């Protein structure tokens, strides 16, 4: 099946600021009118990192939020591409191709639980904004990170009214001392209509395992935004295959870029995901 790319377009925008949030988290704000007008929650943009041929490929980033003609992206300088983005100055051009990918199915009634691990915070402000626009008010964010400075600030998940954010850190420097999955039990007791998760694939697998092991009824809408090394981002290179389950429960490859990045958690082959080697970040 051919992906619907009708919203995607390439545009050269302008960097407004690269803000240092602490702990290595960065928020890039850029004027990108097309992307701002067309991005849906969970979709992403392929951003060009520098003008040269190394790094060659664009890097995919969730559209974190939009406001008028600007967009925000949350990332960390971990490789050559993101380092170049981290060094951008106000006024620099930014080449974007997007919006791309299959986003979240946004529900019209709560309660809603958003589970974020590390940079998995990225798609949630845009999602929460859309949920609010649809009248959903009871939104609970579970936000986990390695340490306190790496927690995306609660105040940024939605403005002006901040949703309820419960935090967890691996080292106990803020909130619950442990993994974000430890907080799932209490969140499930509200019988959410939807649970959305984003974070490293291993963390997403842990979320699914925790949900299944809890024995609680799974939320009717249960979706995760996954990640994979990408070539093109628009379904032609076939490079970003991830193991999923077909209708018969057999493992098949699905493309992270066009079948995802948001997939129904029931349709993901979590065992297959768990067996993949770690990502190579350049």
């Amino acid at each position, binding site marked *: 099946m051919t992906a619907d790319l009708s919203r*995607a377009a390439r545009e050269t925008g302008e960097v407004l600021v690269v803000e240092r949030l602490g702990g290595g988290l960065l928020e890039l704000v850029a004027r990108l009118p097309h992307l701002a007008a067309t991005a849906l929650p969970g979709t992403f943009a392929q951003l060009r990192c520098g003008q040269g041929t190394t790094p060659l490929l664009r890097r995919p980033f969730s559209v974190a939020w939009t406001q008028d003609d600007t967009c925000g992206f949350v990332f960390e300088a971990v490789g050559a591409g993101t380092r170049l983005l981290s060094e951008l100055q106000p006024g620099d051009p930014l080449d974007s191709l997007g919006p791309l990918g299959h986003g979240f199915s946004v529900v019209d009634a709560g309660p809603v639980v958003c589970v974020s691990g590390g940079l998995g915070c990225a798609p949630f402000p845009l999602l929460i904004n859309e949920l609010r626009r649809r009248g959903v008010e009871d939104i609970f964010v579970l936000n986990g990170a390695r340490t306190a400075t790496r927690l995306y600030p609660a105040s940024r998940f939605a403005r002006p009214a901040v949703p309820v954010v419960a935090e967890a850190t691996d080292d106990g420097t803020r909130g619950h001392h442990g993994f974000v999955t430890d907080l799932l039990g209490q969140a499930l007791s509200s019988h959410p209509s939807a649970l959305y998760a984003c974070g490293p694939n291993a963390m997403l697998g842990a979320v699914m395992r925790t949900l299944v092991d809890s024995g609680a009824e799974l939320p009717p809408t249960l979706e995760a935004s996954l990640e994979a090394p990408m070539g093109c981002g628009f379904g032609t290179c076939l*490079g970003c*295959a991830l193991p999923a389950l077909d209708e018969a429960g057999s493992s098949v490859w699905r493309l992270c870029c066009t079948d995802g990045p948001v997939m129904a958690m029931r349709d993901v082959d979590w065992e297959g995901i768990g067996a993949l080697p770690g990502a190579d970040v350049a």
Partner: protein
Amino acid sequence: MSENASGAVDLGRGLILPNPVGLASGTAGYGFELDQLIDINRVGALYTKGTTVRAREGNPPPRVAETGGGMLNSIGLQNPGVDAVAAEYAPRWKGWAIQVIVNIAGGSVEEYVHCTTVLEPIDEVAGIELNISCPNIARGLDFGRDPVAAARLVAAVRAVTERCVIVKLSPNVTDIAAVARAVEDAGADAVSAVNTYIGRKIHRASGRSVLPLGNGGLSGPAIQPLALAAVAAVCEAVDIPVIGVGGIVDAASARDFLIVGASAVQVGTATFVNPETALQVLDGLRG
């Protein structure tokens, strides 16, 4: 090089490309994604994803890895199979101005012949590109490395089609000119050169290969000088048209291939970075 570097190109057997710029196999799917992103009908030719007798699921991930000025891929010829291409995709090419050339791959002469036979009655298929050079499947290079085997394959395909047959050559050989001469003698109408170079990247934290099968195929601007040397050697060896491919990112890097004797070019990996690259190359050649 002809005076009009952007004019029509006659590849033989009635296949005339409206202009010399094509989209390389494996970087444009079957055209349906790029058709949504660019004015695909301004491009001269679409060389489809490698297509096999039966559907192939492709290789386990990770399938791509970035390198200096390039990328390695190990997709493993994921495709829906030639019957699905004929029944479901070909009707969607009806009315397209871009010439659709179906790239086919196989593990035996019979598989290539079968694919060609299935495609033969379809009006929307303008030509066949024989992929004898895929580094990412078992036996993918068997035909590409042996001039005698390559010639036998081309002769067998030649016998079942009236269409233009282009042979995509592997650079992973000692003497690419020898393979080019062999396929010309066996009845190929044109050759395209080159497919990807075999390469490897190490995940330095673990010491293992990034790509699970070890090696992949290297593409992108890093290979342009290598591809240029190979294409120059092929152009000296044969009289049939040569289509240059490998690391083209703009009109200047495309023109290099025309200078060494290629009649047409294909834009590959650069399309991933900027889907409009082929159109920019075309406009640049016209300018």
